[in-house]
C-alpha cells in the first residue's frame, strides 16, 4: 500500500496538473477547502474521483462522493487510504 504522503502527493499533482490555474497552485495545501471555497466545482471534483479510481484501481461509491470525503486533499487521501487499507 502506498504511503499517505505518496497518495497525498499523487492527488495534489493531479489537481495541479489538470484542474487548477497556475496562480492557484501556491495556495493549495492539504486542508484547503476545495469544495466549499469553490476551488473545484462538482464536475472537477468528480474528475478527481475518476482519477483516484483509475490510479489505485478502487471504486468510490456514489454515497461516498460527498464533501466529507472529497472536501480537501487530506480528506481524499484519508478516503483512499481507508479503501486501500
Amino acid at each position: 500500500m502506498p504511503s499517505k504522503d505518496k497518495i497525498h502527493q499523487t492527488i495534489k499533482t493531479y489537481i495541479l496538473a489538470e484542474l487548477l490555474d497556475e496562480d492557484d497552485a501556491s495556495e493549495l495545501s492539504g486542508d484547503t477547502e476545495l469544495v466549499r471555497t469553490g476551488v473545484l466545482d462538482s464536475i472537477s471534483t468528480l474528475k478527481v474521483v475518476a482519477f483516484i479510481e483509475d490510479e489505485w484501481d478502487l471504486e468510490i461509491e456514489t454515497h461516498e462522493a460527498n464533501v466529507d470525503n472529497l472536501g480537501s486533499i487530506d480528506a481524499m487521501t484519508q478516503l483512499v487510504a481507508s479503501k486501500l487499507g
Partner: protein
Amino acid sequence: MSIPARPLTARQLLIWLGHQRASALPADNMVMVFTMEGELDPDRFHQAFASVVADCEALRTVMLDDGIEPQQRVCAPASMPIAHAFTDLSSAAFPQQDADALRDHCAAQTFDPTRCNYASLLLRLAPLRHTWVFVQHHLITDGRSVSILFDHVSRRYAGEAPTPIAAYSLYIDQEATYRQSKAAARDAKFWAPRRTRMVEVQGGYGPVPAPEGPLHCRVERDLGLARSVAIRNMCETRAFRSLSASLSATVLFKTVLFAHLRRVRGDVPLAVGAALHNRDSRKTKNVVGCMIEVAPFSVEVGLDESFATLHKKLLDETITVLRRARHAVPNPLNKPVYDVLYNFHTATFSQFAGLPTHTEFRTGLNSSTTSAETTGSTTAGGDTLVLQVHDFDQTGQLHLTFDFHAARFPAPLRERIPDHYIRLLDALLLDPSQKIGQIDLLSRAEHEELRNTFNPPRNPDVPKHVVSMFGGQVRLRPDATAVRFGTEALTYGQLAKRVFRLARVLNDMGVGPFVTVAVALERSVDLPTALLGILQAGGAYVPLDPGHPVSRNELVLDDADPAVLLTHTALGSSLSLPQGCQRLCIDSIDLEACEDLEARPFDTHAAGSNASHLAYIIFTSGSTGRPKGVCVRHLELANFIRSMASTPGMKQGEGLLAVTTISFDIAGLELLLPLCVGGFVEVASGSSTADPAALAALLSKGDLQVLQATPATFRMLIEGGWPGTPGLRVLCGGEAFPPTLAQPLLDRCDQVWNMYGPTETTVWSSIQRIEPGQPYITIGRPIDNTELYVVDETMNLQPCGVAGELVIGGLGVTAGYHNRPEQTADRFVADPFRPGTIYRTGDMARMLPDGQTLCLGRLDQQVKIRGFRIELGEVEAALAAQPQIAEAVVRAQPNARGESRLVAYLVAHNSTHTLDQDAARLAVREQLPHYMVPSTMMQLPALPRTPNNKIDRKALPDIDLDLESQGRAGTGGAPQNDLEQTFAALYCRVLDLPQVGRDDNFFDLGGDSLSLVRLHRHLGQVYDRAPALASLFQYPTVRTLASVFEQGAPTEASALIALNGARKGAALFCICGIQLYAEVARALPNNPVYGIYVPEERAWLDAAASPDGAYNDLPRVEELATAYVKAIRRKQPQGPYSVAGVSFGGVLAYEIAQQLLAAGQEVAMVALLDTILPSSQRRVLPRWFVAHLQQIRNKGLRHLLNRPSVRLRLLGNSFVARLLRRFRKLSRRRETVGLPRSEADEQRDAAAFVAQLYIRAIRDYEARIRPYEGRTLLIRATDHPPPTGYERDSHSGWRKLLAGNVRCFDVPGDHLGILSGANAVRLSEHLAAALADVRPVAPDADEAQGR
C-alpha cells in the same frame, strides 16, 4: 494557415441530425439578449466583437456536408464576414416593440450550418439603452461559451486583453481519447439499460385544443430575496449540502421539479434532462464550442415519500449521472430520453464594460411561431417544458423561467403552473419531511373555482317523488296522450287508473316501502304502468330484461329478493323464483277495474313512501361476473327527472321515443320523464329497437322531439339510412361519445347532447350539448344539485387540466350497492367538500379551465406495458380514426411468458372487407408511441355487446399470442430477400449482433448516433444511391430500408459490401457470394475485402429458374462479368484491382480480370479458389457436381438454406428460394401422382439445379476462353480430389490458359471448406502475401475526400 476539417463530436452529431430532421425549427438557436443601461459606442462594439470572432475558432466554424458524414471546418478570419449589425431604434415610435420584433426575427432564423452559425445585432433603444441580441447555433456554442464570449466582448470593448479563447479542437481530441478509454466502455455499460427505458410524455396538464403563439411560451417568476436566502441556507444544511453550492441548489430545484411532475403526471416514468458544462480540466476551461452534455435523470417518486427522501435519491442519481455522462453516451438518437429540460445557471452577466446589464437566455423556440407541422408530432419542437434557474443579473435573488411547449400546455393554465411549482418549493423549504402527496398545489382562487364556481350551489327545493310529479300531470291533463305503443295509446287518465289498480294489487300482495318487485315485461304499454304502479305502491322496482339469459336474471332475483315478479303470461315461467316471491302476470289483472281517482289521489305518503325510500334497484355488471344492484332512492330519481326536464329539457305535449331496455337505468328517463312533464312516451316494440328502418319510421311521424340511446344505436340508425328528424333532440350516452358520430348526428337533428353518468349517481350526472367543430367532446357540466371534482389518489383536488379520478357529489348519489357493504364503502365515501357522500367513478378525467369536464376513460382500462401506462381508449380512438375501421377495442393480454401485450379487435366498416392490419399498424404508429401500438390485431365481424348494447370486453376471443413469437429470428422474422439480408448483415456488423429480424428497430437494438453514421457510411459504400443520413430515421428497420431501396433504386442497383473494417491496404473484390467470404475477410485485417451483389446475377438465374427453364437465354459469363466490373469500378474507378472467386466465382473472376485489362486497367491479381474447369476432367464431369453437392449435403443444406447469414453461399438466396418454391411445386405435383417426396429430395434437386446452371455457363464460356497474362493465384482444396479413376491436371485445367506469373498452393478443406475456420486463415495468408505488394487505391471519391 488552413486548419483541416475535423469530424463532429458526438454531441454535435446529435444536434446536426436533429437539425437535418427539423431544419425548419430554430430549436438549436441559442439566443442571448443583453440589455445594457448607459452610453455605448456601436463602432467600438463592432471592433470588439470582430476581434473576438477573429480569436474564436468556434464562431468561424462551419459544417461540411458531403451527404455521408458531416465534418466541421474553421474558416480563416479573412474569408468570413462578421455577422454583426447595428440598428438605431431610438427615434422609432415604439423602440421596444421594434426591438422585440427584430429579436424574434433574428432568433427564429434558420441557420445554414455550412455557411455561418451565429448572428449578432446591436440595437439602440434609447441614447442610454442598448440591446445586444446574440444568436448562435448550438453546434458551435453552449452556455459556458456564451459567458466566455460575453466576457471577451465586454473586456475588449473596455480595452482589456483577456486570456485567449481555447480552441474547440482540444475538446474534439479529448473526445477521441475518451472513445478509446476504459472509462468509455464503463460509461457505455452504465447507460445501455437506461437508454432503453426511456420516457414518452404522459399525463401532465392538458388538453391543448389549438396551440398558438411561439412554440415555447415563457412564464417567469422571481423567487424574491427571502426565499432565495432560504434556499441558500437550506443548501448549507448537512442533508442538502453536496459537492458544490451550485450542485446543492441544482439538486434542490430538481427535487421540486420531480415532485411537481409526479403530482401532475401521476405514476409514470419520469425523466428530466439536465445540462452539465463538462469542462473538467484546466485546458478545456476556456474552450468556446459545444461541450455541454445533457444527461437524463430519472427516479421513481412516490406520493407518500418526503421531500427529504426524494432529495436523497436525486442527489445519488445526480452524482451517479455526473460521473457517467460524457460525450453524448446517454443520448440515443431516435427517441427522447427526457422531455423536460432543466438548467441551473451559475453564470452572471451583470455588467457589460461597467454598464448594468439585464440578461435573457432564450432559444429560437421562444420566438418561432407554431404551425400544424411543428405541433403535429409529440416530439417536434423540442422539450415539453424547460425550467431554468438563474441569477444572471446578480441581484441576489433567484429567477425561474418556464418555457412551456405550446402544444403541451393549455394557454389559460400556463400562468398557474409556476405557482404550483413554487408552492411545492415553499413546502420543501418549510419542512422537508413533508410528504409530496400532501402538499396543496392550489391557490385559494383555484380552490374556490374548482369547488364552487364550476359546481353551483345546491337548490334545496326539489320534488320528492316522481309519482307526485306524474300525479300533478294527471290532474292537469287527464285526456292528454301519455303512452303510445304501436296502435295502442293511453291518456293520462287511463294510465293513472291502471297505475292505481296495479298499486292496489301489489299492496295486497305485501308490497310497500323497501319491498322490491321484479319487472320482466315485453315492451308494451304496460312498461310505464308497471313502474309507476310499483312506485305508487311504495315499493321499488327491479327491472329485468326477459331477453337476458335466464341464469343472469336468476342471479338478480336471488340478490334482489323481490316479493313479486311482475311479468306477462306469454313470457312463461322459465325463471325459478326465490322463496317467498310470487308471480303476478300484469295481463291477468283487470287494470280497467274502476278505481276512483278523485277519492284516492296520487299521494305517495298514503302508501308510506317518502323521498328516502327505495325507488328501484338496477343491476349492473360486477367485476366478479356477478351483477351488483345499485339502490336508487326517490330523492335521487326525482332530482334527476326534474333536472332533465329543464336541461336538455322536455315540455308538455312533447313526445319521446323509448328504445332502451328497462334493465338499463337510462330507461328510467325514457319512461318517466315524459310522464312527469306532461309529454308522452312512444314505446318502441322489442323488434323495432334493433331495426333502424322501424325506428326511422317511428321518428318520421314528426311528433317526437326526444330520443335517447347509446352511440351504438345511433350508429345503427345512421348506417340504416335514417335521414334525420327535424326538431329532434338527441341524448347520447352510456358509452364515450365517439367524435366521428358528432357531425352525422348534428346533420340529422336539432340538438345533440352527450350524457354522462354512472348508475351509482342516478342515470346522468353531467351533460354537454355538442356543437359543430368542437375541438374535443367533453362531458360538460354537472346536472342540478350535482358536483363534479377531479382528485388524485389522496383526494386532493387536481389542478385544472391535470388528470385524476372523477368523483361525483350531490343529490344524485345513490345509497350504494345492495347487500354489498364493502364495495359500497369503497366507492361511496364522505364528501370532503359538501354534506353527504361522493361517489368515486373510477373514470379518469380532466377539469378544463372553463369548468367543463373531459372524460379520459376508465381508470381500470389503464394497463401497463413494460412500465408504460396506457389508456386503452386512446389506442382505440387512434385505430377507429383509420378510415376503413369502424370500431376498435384494445385490451392487454398476457403471453406465455406472462408479459402483457396489447391486442386489438377491429371491425371494418364493410364487414366483408378484410382489413389491412399492417397498414393500420403503420398508421397508428405515426400517432402513438411505440409501446401503445398493439402487437396483434384480429378482425371481427362485430364486437360482442352486452344486452345494454355496451361493448362486452369479457366476451372478446383470446388471441394466441404465442403462435406469433414462434420461430422468430427477431421482430418480423428473418430477412426475406437479398436486400434485406444485406441490410441485416450491415445491422449486425454495425451493432455487433449475431442476427436481427426484419422488423427490429435499429434504435431499439441499441443503435445510436455513431452507429447510425457508421451504418450510413456502409450503405454509401454498398449502394450508389444511399438515402440521406437523416432520412434513415424514417427507415429504421431492415424491411423499411430494403423497401425504400427497392422503390428508389430499380433493378440495376448493384451492391458492394465491405466484409471487414479495413480501410487501408489493397482491396480484394470477391466474386459470386457475399457472406461466403466473411471468414476470409476477417482473416485479412489489412486489406479491405468486398463482397459484391449484382442484380444481373439474379436476373440471369431468374431466367434459368423460370418454370419452362429457358436455358438458352442464359446471359453468358462475359455479360455477368461486365456487371461485376461496373460495380467494382463504381467503387474503385482505377486499378490496380485484385479479384478472387471460389468455384464458379473463380471463372467469373478470371473473366472480370480479362475485361479490366481490356479496359486498360491494371489487374494486380486474380485468385482462383478451387475453381476447376470442366475440361480438366471432362470424362467425370457429372461426378464433380455430385461431389460438390455431396459436400453441401454433408454440411446440411437445409441448415444452410434456413440460416440467413449463409443463404448466399449458393448464389443468392432469392434464387434458392425460388428454386425451392419451384421444386416444392414440382414435388407437390409428384405427390399427386403418388411419388413420395422428401425434403432431402427437394434440396438435392435444388442444388442439382444450381449445379446445372454452373456447368452450362462454364461449358459455354470455355468455348471462347482466352489466355490470361496477369499474375494469378491458384488455390486447390486438398479434400477435393478428382473422383476415383479419373484424372485432373495439377492446375485444374488452367495451365494452358495462364501465361503470366502463376503461384499454386494447396489449402486444407473441401471445395467450399477452404473458406471457413482455420482453413480460411490459411487461405488468407496466401491472399495477404499476394496482396502485400499491391499498391493501395483510395476506394472511391467519397473516401478520398477529407481523410
